[in-house]
């Protein structure tokens, strides 16, 4: 991509990895640190008592399945691009995008279920245990939206025949980020299951 073309065009790369891919990993590390802060704050705060216990919304199990499926379709899209199977690539990208939207809808329904059970984000009756759940899912959801935006960019470039075996960078980055978002949710889900 032309962001780095100038600096990379003529000189050799000492890192053995494309700079943008490396950059993406660094961004992922910073997101991990953010969630490490949230989840360790969760643990520290929970140990202090006055902690409202409630059931996790069941729909979150469904959203976990959805996001796992979307990781599969994303990988298939990546493989299709590597094999220059443009039709399959597009189909899988559409599927991934659809599953991503479905995941967000499921999370939204999870929030409605929480509100139905009188677990609120803020306000007089709220407890940090509930607020933490909203923050964890909300901040993850925000990152998923950024993933969807990037996915949309990849879809548009695939429509312009710009994603194929000789031009894999975009979809590689997208796949890494998407798997990360799936893994992050899996971690959050297990974390919440174990600490409830």
């Amino acid at each position: 991509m032309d962001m780095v073309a100038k600096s990379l065009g003529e000189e050799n790369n000492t890192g053995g990895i494309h700079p943008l891919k490396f950059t993406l990993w660094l961004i992922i590390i910073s997101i991990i640190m953010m969630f490490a802060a949230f989840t360790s704050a969760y643990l520290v705060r929970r140990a202090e008592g006055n902690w409202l216990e409630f059931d996790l919304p069941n729909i979150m199990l469904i959203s976990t399945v959805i996001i796992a499926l979307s990781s599969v379709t994303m990988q298939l899209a990546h493989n299709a691009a590597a094999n220059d199977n443009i039709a399959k690539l597009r189909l899988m990208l559409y599927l991934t995008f659809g599953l991503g939207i479905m995941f967000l809808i499921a999370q939204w329904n999870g929030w409605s279920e929480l509100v139905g059970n009188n677990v609120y984000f803020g306000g007089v009756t709220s407890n940090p245990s509930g607020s933490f759940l909203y923050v964890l899912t909300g901040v993850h959801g925000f990152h998923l939206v950024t993933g969807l935006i990037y996915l949309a960019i990849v879809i548009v470039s695939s429509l312009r025949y710009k994603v194929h075996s000789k031009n894999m960078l975009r979809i590689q980055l997208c796949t890494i980020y998407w798997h990360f978002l799936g893994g992050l949710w899996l971690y959050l889900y297990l974390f919440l299951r174990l600490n409830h």
Partner: protein
Amino acid sequence: MSSTDISINKDVHHAHEEHDHHHDQNFFEKYIFSQDHKVIAKQFLFGGIFWGFVGGFLSVIFRLQLGWPEATFAFLEPIFGGWIVNGKLDPEFYLALVTMHGTIMVFFVLTAGLSGTFSNFLIPLQIGARDMASGFMNMLSFWIFFLASIIMFWSLFLSTGPAGGGWTVYPPLSALPQAISGSGMGMTMWLVSMALFIVSQLLGGVNYITTVINLRTKGMSMTKLPLTIWAFFLTAILGLLSFPVLFSAALLLIFDRSFGTSFYLSDIYIAGEALANTGGSAILFQHLFWFLGHPEVYIVILPTFGIVSEVIATNSRKPIFGYRAMIGSMLGISLLSFVVWAHHMFVTGMNPFLGSVFMFLTLIIAVPSAVKVFNWLATLWRGNIRFTAAMMFAIAFVSLFISGGLTGIILGNSALDIQLHDTYFVIAHFHLVMGAAAFFGMFCGIYHWFPKMFGRMMDEKLGFVHFWLTFLSAYLVFMPMHYIGIAGFPRRYYSWTGFDAFNTFTDLNSFISIAAILGFTAQLIFLFNFIYSIFKGRRATANPWHSNTLEWTTPVNPGHGNWPGEIPTVYRWPYDYSKPGAPEDYIPQNVPFSQTQSSNLPYERDLE
């Protein structure tokens, strides 16, 4: 189909490169929304200098109050309006002044101004790269910083004042707008500005790390890197790991303030009225804040470690003593910086056993710090020292780092901290070791790399006047503070005349204030020298300090892409100064061993 696409892509790519090399950029592309690392570095430098004067000015105002508590300051009314009531500083305005002084100096000057300037400027030039890995992200980093600056600056002019809860913004004070006026709109703007600031730092830091890892020129192995690059690299890693945590903490604080959550709030009565918030923990914020906050002080000081090492070696005309030990100690300090945060919280009622663990880890930091000091002194030892203005600041940096570092050992003891916590002893400690020292490192860098930045020299005589006034006033301000701190004089107090124990320090406080005003005034000399030299300074040569690193192999005014021809290849480490047998007392990194047969060491003969 795909093959057609590839050839189209190549054409587009080619056209783009042509565009870069031959088309003159317009004013906006060249100076405003530039993606050139050198221009972005200068933008950060100007931003940092601007903020430095704002932050310094605020400190002069509150020093007036502290130095002359009985005096009236009616003459300030034209500037501050409602904040001066009957000639007296409003107490809440005083709190806002110290808060903004801390925020501006720590984040906007010594983080953005320092790393932003020197990492951007030196990383591509010293590792031999045409530019940063992503010029676009780099530009974004500056402009998001600019946006954060505007919001922070704007908050200074709110009628309710800027944030007033201290630069550490501890809740519940900062979380409750009804607590003080500085927790109202000013605090909201502080949080928004800091959130943007963090995004800017992450964009910059990600770029620095990627560039150092991926874009080094041929031959530039990690153990041939100048120490500056190691320092910037580790600084960026610290930022990458710690700033997201501050972001998390700030986000939860924003929710507490604006969305009615209770992460940090519990069982609070304010103005006789009980708040509904239950279940929060104010200590939680301190843990999150200091998990950033402690690495942050190394984010401030590490770049200056690198700058000072480079300048001391160059101007002592000697190889840096213990190159690998310098890298090792910086790695050690970086690692330790993440496991000592609770030494800021010894008096929060934490478990004394936990306190002793953090005390132990804190005191270990003295070891790598002492290694560095030893190596700087050993580099100076019997060197052929050239006292340039930059060198003066570098040597003074070592002095300040020793004086400030020693008191760190005292403060790191959890038992001693009970007496010294939140006194002026702490103020004296961190102002010497990370405030003044980092400023000296920054000045050192500006004087040293000014010729490469602007193609002209700064005036050395004015530099010396600036140096001596700044150096003297730094010690005159902060040395007496140790004394009143040991006596128990608390920080952040607007007025202390009501306490008999502290009334005896009136003269000492006036003395400190006079020294502070002197120090601030001395910076005007620097400002004049800086601006004057940009336009009228003596023209620089390509390598005025006879230095070894790659930036001095570029033309006097390096253009877009830094080297007009091929990027130089690196053959040797950057510290071949006064090598026995060499005709000159420096051998730049791009000189192959085959050209220096008279000075090659036995093992280097194989490399000829």
